């Protein structure tokens, strides 16, 4: 799958990133880039450091060494919400939604960045507040339509089936207005039809101009949607390239897919 049109501008660059937990090396000398409009798959066996990498990119974990840059802004030392406000937004491996709120409220919370009303607008109930809230509600409905949860708007999030909870997690991330989205195992635990729905959604998101970095164990999915794949093992990159090349890479087959056994 070719990268979409425009010049290959690097949006996320990871340079010499290392993470040590005491004596344990979770990531060592990680170097790669993601270009505008690309879908890059980040794969590797369990414990390879994928989620650790996500945590570093999004400010939830400080790297021991190295630099992470998003659109030329150095992310080291920024807090998660500051990184989100640059447009770099993530989802979580484990279902992460606001369980006790309705689906609609969840998305409204996710739209926090878009809110423009000030404390005074709110306290004095100025017309501006009403207009801003109306715009947010419209936007929330639009996002629910994109992820296909519009019928669930009034349901409490905790009552949704698993697959829809995961979709709501993606809706939350979309609501945060990403220019780049980090998806952490979006289809894990889903059945085939739910996975297909997510894959379609990923394509829709990309078509809207959002760059995507994807961590996923579901090989058919990764191979199908990714333009390029980065393979991690024991905290270091062992291969990088288009899906067709990665599938044939002997080191990857040995480390990740298992010798003599092809799943993909």
């Amino acid at each position, binding site marked *: 799958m070719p990268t979409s049109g425009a010049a290959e501008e690097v949006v996320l660059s990871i340079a010499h990133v290392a993470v040590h937990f005491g004596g344990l090396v979770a990531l060592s000398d990680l170097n790669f880039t993601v270009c505008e409009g690309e879908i890059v798959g980040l794969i590797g066996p369990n414990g390879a450091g994928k989620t650790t990498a996500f945590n570093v990119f*999004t400010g*939830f974990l400080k790297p021991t060494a190295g630099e992470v840059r998003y659109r030329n802004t150095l992310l080291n030392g920024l*807090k*998660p*919400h500051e990184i*989100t*406000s640059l447009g770099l*937004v*993530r989802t*979580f491996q484990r279902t*992460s*939604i*606001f*369980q*006790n*709120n309705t689906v609609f*409220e969840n998305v*409204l*919370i*996710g739209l*926090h*960045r878009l*809110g423009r*009303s000030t*404390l005074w607008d*709110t*306290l004095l*109930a100025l017309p501006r*507040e009403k207009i*801003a*809230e109306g715009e*947010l509600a419209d936007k929330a409905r639009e996002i629910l339509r994109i992820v296909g949860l519009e019928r669930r708007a009034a349901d409490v999030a905790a009552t949704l089936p698993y697959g829809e909870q995961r979709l709501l997690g993606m809706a*939350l*991330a979309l*609501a*945060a207005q990403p220019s780049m989205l980090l998806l952490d195992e979006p289809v894990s635990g889903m059945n085939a039809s739910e996975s297909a729905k997510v894959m379609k959604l990923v394509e829709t998101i990309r078509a809207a101009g959002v760059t995507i970095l994807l961590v996923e164990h579901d090989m058919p999915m990764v191979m199908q949607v990714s333009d390029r794949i980065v393979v991690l093992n024991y905290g270091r990159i062992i291969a990088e390239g288009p899906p067709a090349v990665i599938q044939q890479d002997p080191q990857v087959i040995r480390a990740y897919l298992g010798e003599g056994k092809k799943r993909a």
Partner: protein
Amino acid sequence: MKRALPAVWLVVFLTIPLWLQDQYILHILITTGIFIIASMSLNLLLGYTGQLSLGHVAFFGIGAYASALTTLGFDVDVFGFRVLHQPWPAVIGLFVGMVIAGLSGYAIGRLSFKVRGAYFVIVTISFAEVTRLIALNWVELTQGPLALTNIPPYTLGFPGLGSYTLWNKTAYYYLVLAVGLIAYVVISRLVGSRIGRAMIALKENETLASSVGIDVTRYLVLAAVVSAGMAGAAGSLYAHYLKIIDPDIFLFIYTVTMVIMVITGGKGTLAGPIVGGVIFGFLPVILRPFAAPAVQWILYGGLMIAIVFVLPQGIVPALERWIANWLTRKPADALLAGSSKPHEGQ
């Protein structure tokens, strides 16, 4: 119907002094009202951001002392410098009390939101204890255990109409009602807005909240400042109504009272602190003819345990659930009873 309910209650509260002749009951209404305002402020922190401030009475006491001292004036020696303050009108004291309580809320917020959960609880308890010790020992300023006395009542100035001093209980009742109403409106607007959603998000899932771009510290501190300022206003009302305050105002039992009012009424609901406040404000009055003070405390505790045990989320959420169930069951009952006119839709 749900929208009309607050209006009905407002009319009831507005007319109480017209038909209530008993001054003692009016006095209980005023003090209960003051504690309800403090509980509403605690609810903003506990119910909406999920932070348990067990030193909430500190903000209440700071508001009371700051307001009283602003009104009474003082002449103290601070590190060799003489600080002299001439008495100001009591209404200015109310604002000074709110501002100083709000500022201390800011300080506590900045300091302790770095440490959450149990640590926050410890920091707030310690803060209340420190403020109590200052009130007790800085005798030159606070008169220590001798108490600040003769705190003047508020005088409200109306441009072109002259001024009115709140000498009697009825006037104080309406003042407390007005302040309570403002507090209620402020909280309801906050929690119904983007700011409130951010606070609720922090309570529910802080990691997720920050990942969608919510500045955790900012909204927690904002909640702490608004909450502390509101508690400070309640403290000021208390000081000017009773006309005397001593360091016992910082006692832990007052925080516990507020927490009980919030938890039993229903934390995270607008009406919760009011319902809890009315119950626990009036319980001693109801029990007084029947039980000795010691027995009262036992019954008081027993009722609280019973409410928390049976209705863990509090009275208001339970009532809302019952009403919702009742409303949805009604059409089904009608159908089962063979009603000739089945309900359409819901």
